[in-house]
């Protein structure tokens, strides 16, 4: 992978990674999250772990497992941290959350207690740290979601665990909280060599036209995301309907998969199908978690990619689409704001009406459309490829060894 990445990012970037890795030789690094498939975190780890191995690092990836009630609780965390109101998590569910973490702590005790660095991703495994009072290494809480305005009950509950970490990592500075340890800002990234992003043959790309009954002669709008209310699939359908009045040829694809740790996916999928109301130009696709080449091809056949989220940790589908030189219409929230620059590589919108306006504008003005397409790939190459993220993770690990020092000399 390193050789292929070198052809994209250049030799000096790869040399840089090799050098940083040399300071971490022999250290055991463990990443923990709650699913191996589905969702952005699993995807990131799928890409990062093999790269760390190629760099000679001893990195492993473990998951915590739980019963349905555990995932119900963590989904409520997810929703309430990102601002969903009028919910209270019953104490019984909070107890199950802690019990599940304790059971996983027992199962993973030797691995975690002896690790030099432990990355705990998101709230699901956050309580593990409580069960390692004599841990050997540095523990970091890596938060991928938008915690800028969390529900107080959930944040207060989680904070009792998070304060025990040696550091936190957030995707955006806006998400950083008041915590008694260093808070590092590291944006996620995409792997340009993964099935989701690699170059495809013409046949592989065009296969999706027949597979999903799409008309290549008509404009295609696409949103790729889990069926989650914060991704606002219904808002996308409403925007499409507004566009359809003036551009009847438009087609919409809503492609999503499910994640093991998301019990609400099927409910939101049903809501989306109901809103689509059997419109033959709306294609709601529930894809398996490994349909990466299919998503890659859909992103390449789309004219405009949407990510009309109302809350978003980062929005890797935006990065993926920009990498494929597609203009993106994104919700004016979270990490999307870091990636979509109005009138440069897409547009930020706040409402379905705003999204409809920008879709019509892009489909009507070919010069604008071509200009926005050109900018995306270069922007991602400079800022959001996996090499940059791994470099920052390695820098973090080196810095964690001397957390009170701002400049470390080797």
């Amino acid at each position: 992978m390193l050789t292929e990445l070198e052809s994209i990012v250049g030799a000096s970037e790869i040399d840089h990674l090799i050098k940083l890795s040399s300071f971490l030789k022999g250290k055991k690094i463990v990443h923990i999250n709650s699913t191996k498939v589905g969702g952005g975190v699993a995807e990131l780890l799928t890409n990062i772990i093999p790269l760390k191995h190629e760099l000679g690092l001893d990195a492993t990836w473990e998951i915590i497992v739980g019963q349905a009630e555990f995932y119900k609780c963590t989904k409520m965390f997810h929703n309430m941290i990102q601002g969903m109101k009028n919910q209270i998590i019953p104490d019984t569910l909070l107890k199950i959350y802690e019990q599940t973490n304790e059971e996983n702590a027992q199962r993973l005790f030797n691995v975690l207690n002896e690790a030099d660095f432990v990355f705990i991703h998101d709230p699901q495994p956050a309580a593990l740290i409580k069960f390692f009072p004599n841990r050997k290494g540095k523990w970091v809480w890596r938060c991928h979601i938008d915690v800028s305005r969390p529900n107080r009950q959930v944040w207060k509950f989680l904070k009792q665990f998070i304060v025990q970490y040696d550091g936190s990592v957030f995707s955006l500075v806006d998400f950083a909280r008041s915590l008694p340890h260093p808070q590092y800002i590291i944006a996620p990234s995409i792997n340009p060599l993964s099935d989701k992003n690699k170059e495809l043959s013409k046949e592989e790309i065009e296969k999706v036209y027949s597979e999903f009954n799409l008309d290549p002669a008509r404009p295609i709008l696409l949103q790729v995301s889990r069926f989650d209310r914060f991704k606002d699939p219904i808002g996308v359908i409403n925007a499409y309907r507004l566009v359809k009045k003036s551009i009847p040829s438009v087609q919409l694809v809503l492609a999503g998969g499910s994640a093991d740790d998301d019990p609400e996916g099927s409910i939101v999928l049903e809501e989306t199908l109901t809103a689509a109301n059997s419109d033959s130009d709306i294609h709601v696709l529930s894809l398996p978690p490994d349909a990466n080449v299919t998503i890659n091809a859909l992103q390449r056949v789309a004219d405009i990619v949407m990510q009309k989220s109302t809350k978003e940790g980062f929005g890797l589908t935006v990065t993926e689409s920009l990498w494929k030189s597609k203009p993106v219409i994104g919700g004016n929230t979270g990490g999307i704001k870091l990636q979509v620059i109005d009138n440069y590589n897409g547009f930020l919108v706040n409402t379905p009406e705003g999204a409809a306006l920008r879709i019509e504008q892009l489909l009507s003005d070919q010069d604008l459309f071509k200009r926005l397409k050109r900018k995306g790939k270069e922007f991602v190459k400079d800022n959001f490829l996996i090499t940059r993220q791994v470099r920052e993770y390695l820098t973090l690990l080196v810095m964690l060894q001397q957390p009170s020092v701002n400049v470390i000399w080797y």
Partner: protein
Amino acid sequence: MTENNISPFEIKDCSILSIATGRHAINVKELLTQLLSVDPDSIYYHFWGKLLRTSFSTPEFNNDFAQWVSDQIHDKSLAEKLSVLEPQDYQSVDELRQEMIDIIQISLEQNTVLLYTNAQEPFHFLKLGMVVFNTSKVINEPLEFVDIIDNLSYGSLYFHFIDARRRTQNHRDDFSNWIALFGNYDDLVDMIINIDPFFLPLSKLKEKISNIFKTYFK
């Protein structure tokens, strides 16, 4: 040692990380309050960090403070006054801090609307974490820069040409300081010193330095 008993120039590289300080400002008055006591490293970050962190194209203003005042407080006049500050013109970050404080205090006195204008998005004070390490590249004569500069990583360029200004006694870059030791490259040293790095992205800065060496040694 070179023939002139000058130690070879060892090219270093660096990797940086943005670290939140936990301090924020929602209006200019809060910005002023925070500036009074914020870690000097944070002020440094908001002037120079733009060169190495994830960012979009070339921003309208030259430092994060000016950009925020323009985008969030919508006071172009204060943004412009903050934007002309070039950190290399000050002996220390604290001197730069004092200049910013003066500019903001005067603006607050002259334009009381600033006291009541809140930003939609706060200014987050960040600071820089940095890991510095040796590369295997070593230069024995100034001529060798001709072949080295084009292949220099942005981390190396940042470390030797930007960060050097806060490490060296004369607040200059490492390249010109080392070449000056030879004593017979005054024109070249002057040309390098005269580059103003504050307005250039690292890609353009590299090009400019490279052209100077190529032209001088052609």
